């Protein structure tokens, strides 16, 4: 069996062989006095397995010169990683004491860091780095003022932890077709081509969303249910907004026994208040058990047919708000009349018809009918910086395209860039006039490799394998794609064009400005969404029988809580370790109820002090606890793995192939989950990893599969105790949190690693380790605040520099 590099599973199997081999080792010669003590530590604790003969994990520590770790950083960085977490040597082999661990790690890192200064290796991100879907979507917003749905225009990008890794992002003919068609649609929308045809867009609402309260900040007070939609109306013209209500499984509209009012608004102003429901065209089903007659049934099936509003709308992105007037007072509580819909209930049956309230199931917006021109949209204002009159069309087109190309290509443009665009403009304008020409040139610009690729070309005549400082323009793009996942804005681009960005003071000022910009929410949405796997909260399907309390409202509250929490962490520039320890979070009534917190009313999430020690920080948040559980039970392994990989930066290798799972003779037959897991861990092939993951997972066992607090499972009390690899014992989530918080550099190191990988768009290599250590070290003085880490990255060698082509 081949043991993959970095895999500590299966190591125990070799223990006996290692010990035997140890006796045959001779101490290496030639080490100087300063390093001889470390040589003997290595010989005693490491080289028994990692020697020339066994080469466990492909590592021969006898051959590596400990007097000069900088000569073999690829080896010694690996050692440092293992020692930092005390992951080596594996139990039950003898381990050095803490002081020895620390001094060896210190010695190695000091040596490695010094060597890295002399011999800089900044790495080499892809020379041509394709924009991914998120970046493309954001660029449309920033270049053209257009909010597009990237997911409907472009295929997904493949992910290696993050979906912005340059080496992976390739271009196939299928993708080229998509780029072509996306550019056609976008340029048409942005210019406001008056021939844009009628189209319709569907906005579905989950049937599992309980619409008992005001559903969003974007909906008016005093309303219940419904949805707020940001929709782009392509032209001035008439549009139809059609609302479909939730139906029973056999097709009857819910909640129409009594009259209700549907409130339809556009950008906050009411368009129409539509009364519906409560009609009796015939016999209505009643308590006597008789069914409705034919006419009444027809009505009950189509009672929402009249919920259509047709109105003239000015072109541009607007907020469409659909909700029901709340005819009851708040004192009746959240779900006063409506039978509460949970996942357990699935879709309600026909007998729910009486007495329930109507819910929105879908909103369809179609149009334009009778378009009346392009209107004045944000996009048109951005694009048409001039309006030609007669003969100056050509020069106006030149001005427009020069401005667009400079922003899209993220650099100054010259005649070489402009003349091909003008050719396209002419082709378009000869057929359809000035604006058609601009539209055509814009379509081309959006498929141009200068836009779709971030190019980091090398200075000519530089020898291979040489580190060099990237240009200010490259640096500007690196910054904006890191912090905003988008193109540089005007101030950043100007600073780069003027050559000021390499000035550390200007760089810092730009970074701080960018972090304060609303676009920096990208760090939460895109970076943290992938780093902490928060995107997966959406995809989880908890078992309805086991977790009847779970519904769409709770899921949305989970997502929103963590989103607001992370936003506040970064926006307020909190210390990174506060992720674990913060004494505040965000809740609405639904969430507060779930967390057993009283005194919070309404659907709006607001900042709340956390009184319960167990709920402090991200480890107490429902989102994380849900996404690390199975549908019907918790998973100590997934939770342990999540904490290790994302908060501590320990890569857990996959289970070795062909090792079957535990044979469970009937579930629960072998005692508690803990006993089963302990039996599992007794298998040497499994122990290496599981002894890392499981204790952490067990500490979180007081939270069930959707994050609800519990003290017992199936009648047996929860035992949340555990022991870390270094022997530290702890009890439950609070002590685990305190332990982790007590060693903040572990979390900060992990966060820095993830951020740097995201910032560079490449996986990290051993030569990046000194930079990461430097950033962590330097940020300690600022209490590891977010801005100090982010600034540290912006100033680091791998971010500021690049290596030329290999030999």
């Amino acid at each position, binding site marked *: 069996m081949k043991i*993959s590099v970095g895999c500590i599973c299966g190591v125990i199997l070799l223990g006996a062989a290692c010990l035997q081999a140890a006796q045959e080792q001779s101490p290496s010669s030639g080490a100087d006095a300063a390093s001889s003590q470390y040589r003997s530590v290595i010989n005693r604790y490491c080289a028994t397995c990692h020697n020339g003969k066994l080469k466990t994990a492909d590592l021969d520590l006898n051959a590596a010169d400990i007097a000069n770790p900088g000569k073999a950083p690829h080896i010694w960085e690996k050692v440092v990683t293992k020692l930092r977490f005390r992951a080596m040597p594996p139990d039950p082999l003898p381990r050095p004491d803490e002081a020895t661990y620390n001094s060896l790690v210190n010695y190695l890192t000091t040596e490695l860091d010094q060597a890295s200064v002399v011999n800089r290796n900044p790495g080499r991100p892809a020379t041509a780095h394709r924009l991914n879907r998120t970046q493309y979507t954001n660029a449309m917003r920033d270049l053209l003022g257009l909010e597009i749905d990237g997911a409907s225009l472009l295929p997904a990008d493949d992910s*290696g932890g993050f979906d912005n890794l340059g080496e992976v992002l390739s*271009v196939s*003919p*299928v993708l080229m077709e998509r780029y072509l068609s996306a550019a056609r649609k976008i340029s048409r929308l942005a210019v406001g081509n008056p021939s844009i045809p009628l189209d319709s867009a569907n906005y579905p609402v989950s049937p599992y969303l309980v619409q008992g309260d005001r559903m969003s900040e974007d909906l008016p007070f005093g309303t219940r249910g419904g949805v707020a939609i940001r929709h782009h109306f392509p032209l001035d013209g008439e549009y139809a907004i059609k609302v479909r209500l939730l139906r029973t499984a056999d097709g009857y509209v819910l909640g129409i026994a009594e009259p209700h009012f549907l409130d339809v608004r556009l950008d906050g102003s009411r368009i129409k208040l539509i009364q519906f429901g409560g009609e009796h065209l015939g016999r209505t089903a009643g308590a006597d058990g008789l069914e409705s007659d034919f006419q009444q049934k027809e009505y009950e099936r189509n009672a929402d047919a009249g919920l259509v509003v047709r109105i003239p709308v000015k072109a541009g992105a607007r907020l469409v708000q659909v909700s029901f007037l709340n005819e009851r007072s708040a004192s009746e509580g959240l779900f006063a009349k409506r039978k509460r819909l949970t996942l357990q209930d699935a879709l309600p049956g026909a007998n729910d018809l009486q007495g329930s309230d109507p819910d929105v199931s879908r909103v369809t917006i179609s149009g334009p009918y009778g378009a009346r021109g392009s209107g004045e949209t944000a996009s048109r204002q951005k694009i048409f910086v001039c309006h030609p009159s007669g003969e100056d069309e050509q020069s106006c087109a030149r001005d427009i395209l020069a401005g667009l190309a400079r922003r899209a290509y993220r650099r100054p443009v010259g005649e070489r860039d402009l003349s091909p665009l003008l050719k396209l403009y002419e082709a378009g304008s000869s057929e359809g006039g000035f604006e058609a020409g601009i539209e055509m040139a814009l379509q081309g610009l959006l498929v141009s490799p200068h836009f779709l690729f971030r190019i980091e070309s090398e200075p000519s005549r530089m020898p291979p394998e040489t580190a060099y400082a990237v240009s200010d323009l490259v640096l500007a793009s690196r910054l904006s794609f890191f912090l905003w996942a988008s193109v540089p804005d005007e101030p950043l681009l100007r600073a780069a064009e003027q050559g000021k960005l390499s000035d550390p003071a200007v760089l810092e000022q730009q970074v701080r400005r960018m972090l304060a910009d609303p676009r920096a929410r990208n760090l939460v949405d895109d970076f943290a*969404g992938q780093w902490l796997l928060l*995107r997966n909260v959406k995809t989880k399907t908890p078992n309805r029988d086991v977790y009847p309390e779970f519904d769409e409202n709770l899921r949305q509250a989970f997502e929103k809580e963590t989103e607001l929490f992370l936003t506040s962490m970064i926006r307020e520039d909190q210390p990174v370790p506060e992720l674990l320890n913060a004494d505040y979070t965000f809740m609405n009534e639904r969430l507060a109820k779930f967390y057993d917190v009283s005194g919070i009313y309404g659907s709006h999430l607001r900042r709340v002090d956390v009184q319960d020690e167990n709920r402090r920080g991200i480890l107490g948040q429902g989102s994380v606890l849900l996404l690390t559980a199975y549908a*019907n039970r918790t998973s100590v392994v997934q939770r342990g793995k999540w904490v290790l990989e994302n908060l501590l930066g320990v890569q857990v290798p996959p289970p070795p*192939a062909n090792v*079957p799972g535990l044979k469970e003779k009937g579930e629960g037959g072998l005692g508690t989950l803990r006993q089963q897991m302990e039996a599992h861990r007794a298998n040497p092939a499994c122990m290496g990893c599981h002894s890392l993951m499981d204790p952490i997972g067990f500490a979180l066992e007081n939270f069930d599969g959707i994050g609800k607090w519990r003290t017992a499972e199936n009648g047996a009390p929860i035992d949340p105790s555990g022991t870390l690899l270094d022997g530290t014992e702890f009890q439950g989530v609070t002590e685990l949190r305190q332990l982790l918080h007590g060693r903040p550099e572990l979390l900060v190191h992990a966060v820095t690693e993830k951020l740097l990988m995201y910032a560079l768009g490449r996986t990290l290599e051993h030569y990046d380790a000194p930079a990461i250590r430097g950033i962590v070290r330097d940020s300690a003085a600022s209490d590891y605040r977010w801005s100090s880490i982010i600034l540290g990255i912006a100033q680091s060698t791998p971010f500021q520099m690049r290596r030329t082509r290999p030999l």
Partner: protein
Amino acid sequence: MMIFRKSIPRRTFIRGLGATIALPFLDGMTPAFAGPLDTAAKPALRLGYVYVPNGIIRERWLPTKVGTDFEMTDCLQQWAPFRNQLTVLSGLDGGPQFVGGHPRGSGMYLTGVDPKKSLNDVLDGVSVDQAAARELGKQTQVDSLQLCIEDAAEIAGQALGGYNAAYTNTISWRTPTQPLAMEYRPRAVFERLFGDGDSMDPEARLARMRRDRSVLDFVSEETTRLLADLGASDQTKVNEFLDAVRDVESRIQRAEASPPSADLPQVERPIGVPSAYEDHARLMFDLLLLAYQGDMTRVSTFMLAREYSELVYTNLNHTEPHHPLTHHRGVEWRIQQAGEVNVYHCKLFAEFLAKMRATPDGDGSLLDHSILFYGAGMGDADIHNQWNLPVAMLGGGAGRLKRGGIHIQYPKGTPFANFHLSLLNLIGAPTEQFGNSTGPADLSAIV
């Protein structure tokens, strides 16, 4: 250029979003982009690979008897009406030695190449569908279609065990470094086939193509200029880009050369993505049928779920995701439910087969003129291995297959790539070696 005519049902129905979308066709639809090689005498061969994740429970799939007398297991039973065009293949391995894990399962399935373990880059092999598409795709508007159900971008942490997520998100590889993204949005598939114009008006369509060609000319010149500025070692990605531009250009030229005429079907664009798995899968199958029917493509791959899929089949009253179910550890209810998923997928595929058979194509049916594979990239998902993959082949092969109704058992350890190799030679894309093939697989029982 009218090459062959066929009668097509006046209305085809595509189900989606819980509603029925009607697809009214004009009578006597003719393929828009059929090339001159297609004559009624020699019908075009359609090739397809339908993939299911996380293996198939052995007992539900594998017949014990070999030869023509094999018994219909729960899965195969779904295809009973097509038994005479069914060939069950067993004994085929993902790799010659033991390899395992999900990324290898799907990553090797059609390539026969052990994928590179890396997050940062991808390296696999050309997949058999793509090797075939280089031949079969020459005449069609779209060289191959890649379909799926799940939106990969919505799943974070999809990279598995140090492998890039590409290996589990697709089974189609155009080149060893170019995984082809699978499309889950019915509308995007529709637009690839019929264009994103708002009318099917041939004039408007032609105008759009001319326009696209001007844009592509521009892009192509810009790319050449960029390549000149880059050092030789930095050109890979940009070269790939240029290849893609040229490929799309040549397809547009082909489409322009065979004018669509008024026979292009008038079809409504699907809006949105159906929320129910079943509606979604059926809609994708229906679009695939349309593509084959209109001869707009002859090659497809369709992942009924991505490898390692964590979909919960709530319509089967399941509450555990598919993947943990398949790690059943011998627990009866898990084996039962994992098997239910397997049979269910086969049933959906059977519906597609029935439609293929009901669709006339030249002198036979579409199914007569197809070779469709169905299978999984894992032999035993419980222990992550790739031995004895579950694979079946359906369809009449457009005259290239002389019989079906047989279970062929290959010698233990035969790479699936051997079969790919034989298939490529059978369908006119001759090659001597494919992935980890050790020689051609014996097809004498069926050709």
